[in-house]
Structures are given as structure tokens and as C-alpha cells.
């Protein structure tokens, strides 16, 4: 095989790998849709599913227009750099479309786009049943195409300042995806307020029962499946050499098989124990476990991954109950699972996996604490400020009448779940 043929073969191998990880990551969004449709009440089912669908629609063009460029343009902070990579990520560059000399930009963009869907979707479940669709879509576009990808540029890239200057390590994006999205969501929830009926007159929280918990559980199984593809897409395929992390440190794909699965099992068990066998929290604990191990998937011993996932499942339950008692109505447990899991993920790496070489730095607890502070701030501040402005303009929350009627009828004019035997007169 000539060197040219070898390069073409290598490029096509990489192209094929990332293309299919992106396709499989769509399962996460089928899962989010089923998960949220299950936890909502019947009167809001269709609107909730529409919101999931439209998340993908609004994030795709915005991520094409500026999200991908942000990743390459801001590795040093808030001032953009005009490097070759950043210029190549501009939507009018020769690389941002079919190009016979570049098999790879499109599939890398696609994989990152699916990460963006995931980040925006983390917010969607928390705010169901009372947010204006337009407000939600604006917030989703900002979170999915600006905020998280800026965090990724800083802490989830071999040239990001958190990595190059401090040795911050967040292999599977527990920080820039889960923590950023969770704190952005928390900022929105503080302005949005709880659903009507969530708290009684004395301020005591009420359980608003999911209308279809089995659908929610099926949704989470789809999310689990899609997350293997998410993590596989975090690995850098390098023909002729070892797999690399996004920081270009060596690793194996086997580490994902070991640690993610053990973290999942630990998360389920931890949440089962903490919630005393409550089904919703038990299965959500599986996701918290898969997130809790994210930062160190490449280096954890599987047993350690199990224990970290176990703690992650417990943290999600306790954090969810804590927020509820404080008057914050996170309808999907998004902050508890993604915020608790994401923060614990970065912290656990600092506690249990210090001393790994990171080019000129080493992994350390201090770097992880710095990274946590950055991710929390970068998520919370824009989420809070933007939703505050929307609230002041009366654009954030639907009217009380619409909320009581249900968003399916109020905003869409049809019901998603129709009682048996219901008919309407045809126009003709």
C-alpha cells in the first residue's frame, strides 16, 4: 500500500468510526424524549416531546454557525485567536462542507454537535410544564452552542488553558457537559420558579407523579446505550498508535467498557440504597454513576469506578431531595444527576487519580478544584442572567391559565394523550 493509500485508508477508518458514534448518540435524545414524556403529566406530554425535538433543530444551525468555531478560537480565555484551526472552523471555510481532501472535519463536527444536543437536553427536563417554548429554545441555543463549548475549549482540549497550565483532567466531560449544563439549569430554575401545585400553602413539597414511569425507565435505558457512543466519541482514534484522550494522553477503548459499566452498576445500587428502592431514583442513579466516573474513565481501576459510581448514585438522591426542600422544582432531577454526578466526577479524579502526567503538568486535586470553580461559574452566571432578563420581560414563563390547562392544548391546540373514544368533527 502506498503512503497516499495508507493515509486515505486511515482517514476513512476515522471517518467511519466518528460517523457511527454520532449516529448512535442520537439514542441519547430518543431517550431524553421518552424520559421526559414519562415524567410529565398527560396534559403536557406532546409539548414536552416537541421541546426535545426542537432542541436538536435549534442547536444544529447555531453550532454550525459559531459553536464549532468557539471550540477552536478560545483556548486561552475570552479573547479569540485566529489560528489555522479556528479559521478552518468558520462556516465559510473550505473544510465546513463536502471536501475531497478532508474526510474528517464533518464527522468531528457531527460528534461535537451531538455532545451539544446532550448538554442542551440536560436543561430541558428540569423546566418542563411551565416554560415558554421561545424562552427555552433561546436558552438551549446559548447553552448548546456557546456556553458549554467555551468550557470545552478551556478544559476539554489539548490546547485549553485549564489543561496546559494546570493539568485539569476531565476525560468524559463531567465538567464541560454535565456540570456546566446543570448549573446553567439551576440559574434558570431560580428565575422560573416551581410548577403550580408543587408546594402546598405551607411550602411543603408535593410529589407530582409521572404519568408513565415505565416510559421514563425505557428512556433512561436508551440514554445508557447512547452514552457508550458518547464516550467512544471522546476517544481519539489514531491509526498506527494507541487510542488517545482528548488531551492526547494514551488510553484504551477497553477502559470505557470496564469503567462505564462498573460505574453504571455502582450508581444504580447506590441510588437504590439511598432512595430505599424508589424506581425513578434507582434508574436515575445509573446515569449519575455513568457521569460520576466520566473524568477518569481512562485511568480508573474498574473497582474504583464502581465505588465512585456508587457514591455518585447516592449523591444524586440526597442532592435531589435537598433541592426540593429548598423550593427548587427540578422536574427531572437534572441538577441532582448531572450537577451532582459532574461535580463529583471532577473531584473524585483529584482525590483518587493524582500524579498522572499531562504533557508538562500532572493531575492534581488543586487543578480539579480550579476546574470545578470555572465550570460552575461558566454555567450558572449566563443561565441566571439570561433567564432573569427573560423573566423581567415576562417572556420566561407561561401564564397561570395555560399552565393549569396544560401546554398541549394551550400552546399546540391538541392533546398528546387522548382518552379512548374521543372524536372530533371533521371539517368536510
Amino acid at each position, binding site marked *: 500500500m502506498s503512503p497516499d493509500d495508507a493515509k486515505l485508508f486511515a482517514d476513512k477508518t476515522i471517518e467511519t468510526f466518528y460517523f457511527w458514534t454520532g449516529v448512535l448518540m442520537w439514542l441519547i435524545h430518543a431517550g431524553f424524549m421518552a424520559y421526559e414524556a414519562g415524567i410529565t403529566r398527560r396534559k403536557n406530554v406532546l409539548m414536552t416531546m416537541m421541546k426535545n425535538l426542537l432542541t436538536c433543530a435549534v442547536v444544529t444551525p447555531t453550532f454550525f454557525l459559531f459553536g464549532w468555531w468557539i471550540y477552536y478560537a478560545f483556548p486561552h480565555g475570552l479573547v479569540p485567536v485566529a489560528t489555522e484551526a479556528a479559521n478552518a472552523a468558520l462556516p465559510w471555510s473550505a473544510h465546513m462542507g463536502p471536501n475531497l481532501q478532508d474526510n474528517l472535519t464533518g464527522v468531528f463536527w457531527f460528534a461535537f454537535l451531538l455532545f451539544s444536543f446532550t448538554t442542551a437536553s440536560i436543561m430541558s427536563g428540569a423546566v418542563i410544564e411551565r416554560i415558554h417554548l421561545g424562552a427555552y429554545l433561546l436558552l438551549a441555543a446559548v447553552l448548546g452552542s456557546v456556553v458549554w463549548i467555551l468550557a470545552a475549549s478551556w478544559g476539554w482540549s489539548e490546547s485549553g488553558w485549564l489543561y496546559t497550565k494546570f493539568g485539569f483532567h476531565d476525560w468524559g466531560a463531567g465538567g464541560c457537559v454535565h456540570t456546566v449544563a446543570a448549573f446553567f439549569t439551576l440559574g434558570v430554575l431560580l428565575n422560573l420558579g416551581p410548577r403550580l401545585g408543587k408546594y402546598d400553602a405551607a411550602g411543603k413539597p408535593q410529589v407530582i407523579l409521572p404519568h408513565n414511569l415505565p416510559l421514563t425507565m425505557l428512556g433512561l435505558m436508551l440514554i445508557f446505550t447512547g452514552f457508550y457512543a458518547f464516550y467512544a466519541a471522546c476517544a481519539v482514534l489514531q491509526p498506527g498508535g494507541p487510542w488517545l484522550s482528548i488531551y492526547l494522553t494514551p488510553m484504551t477503548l477497553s477502559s470505557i467498557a470496564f469503567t462505564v459499566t462498573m460505574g453504571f452498576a455502582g450508581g444504580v445500587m447506590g441510588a437504590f440504597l439511598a432512595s430505599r428502592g424508589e424506581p425513578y431514583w434507582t434508574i436515575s442513579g445509573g446515569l449519575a454513576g455513568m457521569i460520576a466516573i466520566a473524568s477518569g474513565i481512562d485511568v*480508573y481501576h474498574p473497582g474504583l469506578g464502581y*465505588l465512585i459510581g456508587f457514591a455518585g448514585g447516592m449523591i444524586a438522591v440526597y442532592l435531589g431531595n435537598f433541592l426540593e426542600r429548598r423550593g427548587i422544582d427540578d422536574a427531572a432531577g437534572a441538577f441532582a444527576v448531572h450537577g451532582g454526578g459532574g461535580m463529583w466526577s471532577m473531584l473524585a479524579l483529584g482525590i483518587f487519580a493524582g500524579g498522572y502526567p499531562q504533557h508538562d503538568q500532572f493531575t492534581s486535586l488543586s487543578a480539579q478544584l480550579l476546574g470545578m470553580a470555572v465550570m460552575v461559574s461558566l454555567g450558572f452566571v449566563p443561565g441566571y442572567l439570561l433567564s432573569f432578563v427573560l423573566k423581567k420581560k415576562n417572556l420566561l414563563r407561561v401564564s397561570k391559565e395555560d399552565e393549569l390547562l396544560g401546554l398541549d392544548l394551550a400552546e399546540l391546540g391538541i392533546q398528546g394523550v387522548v382518552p379512548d373514544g374521543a372524536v372530533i368533527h371533521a371539517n368536510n
Partner: protein
Amino acid sequence: MDSSPIQSWEQFTSAGTGAIYTFFDSPLVIKGICLLVLAAVVWFIASSYRFEGRGRDRSDS
């Protein structure tokens, strides 16, 4: 906690490097971790018996 069996970038990227997981250089720690995993599984299975009757208890009251 320094748990890395890899001490330098050169060692990390060397073709001869094998296991890189946390505490690989401390077999006793790894065995302790495995023991904790086993304890958690036993705790989980035992607790699952305790939680089984919750719904019945609630409906009785």
C-alpha cells in the same frame, strides 16, 4: 492522592508501558477496593429484602 503507576510523560507514551490504572503499583489497595465492592454488593442484596414490603406497609396504613 498520587495513585499513578506512571511517573513521566516519556513512560506514559512509551510503547512498552502496560497497565496504567490507578493504584496498579499498590496491589493491597486494589484488593481492598475489590473487598469494598463485594461489601457494597452484599449490602445492596440484603437491603433489597428490606425494601420489598414498603408498598404493602404503606397500603396497610
